[in-house]
């Protein structure tokens, strides 16, 4: 675990707008690069003089560079979101537990993403595409508030071409939307994962995750085969500051990816 409190400098090489308030930044190290990140792990991104926020890796995670998708909601995330190519950010990490990969050979894999929750799943989807032949089926279910809030929308066509079953739904359709409307759980219809050989990966708003886990169970995917990525107030990244506790878990260290079996009981307790 890297407990160095000082950030490493990275230069922004690309800043691509994903939605009106969300962009994806590609970063290259200026100093010695941090160790490689694994899909599901997160970094603390620092905007000089403004502050630091936790952001999952959402694409490239090698030692040579990093990709992060950031939504502008506060002062720090806005500064990171707005950082132009050529600008500098500080990075600490990698932190936390990654997605368990690969999934079992010949498994039926179901990925469920709500809103910005697709960002930490993006490098996992990349793995599934690269190793598609390894699995029996791969479904990627994506929900968002509106069609404009869908992340990486230009890539869905390529994912489908590579053999992924990509299904998309929105809460509120906009003119020109021909896709599904409603909850992401409705997209599970027709999927029949083999209970003994399957894997589920879920990330989205907390209100979404428990219903998704239950719905996965009803189509035959045991909760023991599902992983969730959680969000809490991560500050230090190393289990020393105490802010991200969820019952027995330090989400920064024992998460953000946790087995659904562990998370389900904890998320059921109000204000835990």
């Amino acid at each position: 675990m890297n407990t160095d409190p000082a950030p490493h400098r990275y230069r922004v090489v690309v800043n691509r707008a994903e939605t009106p308030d969300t962009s994806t930044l590609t970063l290259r190290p200026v100093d010695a690069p941090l160790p490689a990140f694994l899909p599901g792990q997160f970094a603390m991104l620092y905007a000089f003089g403004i502050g630091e926020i936790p952001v999952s890796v959402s694409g490239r995670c090698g030692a040579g560079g990093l990709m992060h998708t950031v939504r502008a909601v506060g002062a720090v995330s806005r500064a990171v979101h707005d950082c132009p190519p050529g600008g500098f950010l500080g990075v600490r990490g990698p932190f936390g537990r990654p997605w368990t990969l690969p999934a079992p050979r010949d498994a039926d894999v179901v990925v469920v993403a709500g809103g910005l929750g697709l960002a930490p799943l993006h490098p996992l989807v990349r793995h599934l595409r690269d190793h598609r032949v390894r699995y029996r089926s791969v479904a990627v279910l994506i929900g968002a508030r509106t069609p404009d809030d869908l992340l990486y929308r230009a890539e869905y066509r390529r994912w489908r071409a590579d053999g992924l079953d990509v299904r998309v739904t929105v809460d509120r359709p906009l003119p020109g939307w021909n896709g599904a409307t409603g909850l992401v759980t409705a997209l599970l219809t027709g999927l029949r994962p083999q209970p003994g050989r399957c894997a589920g990966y879920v990330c989205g708003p907390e209100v979404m995750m428990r219903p998704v886990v239950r719905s996965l169970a009803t189509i035959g995917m045991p909760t023991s085969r599902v992983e969730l990525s959680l969000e809490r107030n991560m500050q230090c990244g190393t289990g020393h500051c105490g802010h991200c506790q969820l019952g027995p878990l330090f989400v920064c260290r024992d998460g953000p990816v946790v087995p659904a079996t562990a998370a389900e009981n904890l998320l059921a307790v109000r204000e835990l």
Partner: protein
Amino acid sequence: MFQLPDLDGLFAALHADGYRIVGPTVSAGAIVLAELDRPAHLPYGVRVETAPGHYRLRPGPARQAFTHTAGPQAWKEFLQPSPERLWRGTRDDEGFRVDAAEEPPRPTALLGVRPCDLRALGILDGVLGDGERYARRRAASLVIAVDCTEPGEACFCVSAGGGPAARSGFDIGLVERPDGGYLARAATDRGTDLLARLAAPEASDVEVTTARKAVDEAAARMGRRLPEVDLRDLLTRHRTDDTYWSAIAERCLACANCTMVCPTCFCARVTDVTDLTGEHAERWQRADSCFDPDFSYVHGGPVRSSTGARYRQWISHKFATWHDQFGGSGCVGCGRCVVWCPVGIDITAELHALAQRDRS
């Protein structure tokens, strides 16, 4: 065991080795921890009267300096000081330059660590020991424990798994005698070297037995005890017992006094600051509390917005989830949280009430 007529020799030896000595002393109506120049600064002739929400200095044995418990500070202040600058940075052509260099920690002798606080140091080592700053400070610390012969009204170390005698985790262990002399034992090479330089005579068997007896008897005089049930299981089963938690919330001020005086509470937050030119930035770490409204903040608001949920987090962390995280309880039974709660919420009484509720 060696005999020391007083602490003068020990102070001189520590100062000669370059240690600053931190220990108990009287200030602002309480026995606080501060840097001490000489033994006379120790709280001789003072004892404390404690109860839930109540702490008063009273006249005590004139020749003894360690007849007190549950002061308003814990040793963590010297191992994880608050506030502390983690690094500073300056804007430059390559974005910014970060300087995380820190002064090497000053060798510090922690004098008068009670056995409960000794266990607390061990617990903190398990929580923060893999952090470089903490580890460096800890390595630069020399621990001088003093066994407890005067437990207080709020003490419950015995039922928290400890006792009035220091067992391990110290360099030198002392027992204070009513005549103001000390019996000293070393538990490390550093402690052995120090004691050897004091050329202290060996204590007789009778002296050792008498001192041991005073410490052993203290075990029977604890003011409080924890319920003899599996607290981890009790708290886990009652975490959705909302009526219970909201009843505590009626009394709790959420002032965070309990967490700030607790010798094992370690939570901290960081703040990024800039100077007015915007060219210099710093990151500071400060002690934080799970009772702070912002503590569990995620986008949209705090996870634990009610006081009941915050109290539950605190007590459950100490007695239940600490086991999951660090392999034991987070409470050493020092009684500080009982004493320093302005409205006198007594953690042992709350656990007894919950155990009672569980039975009925």
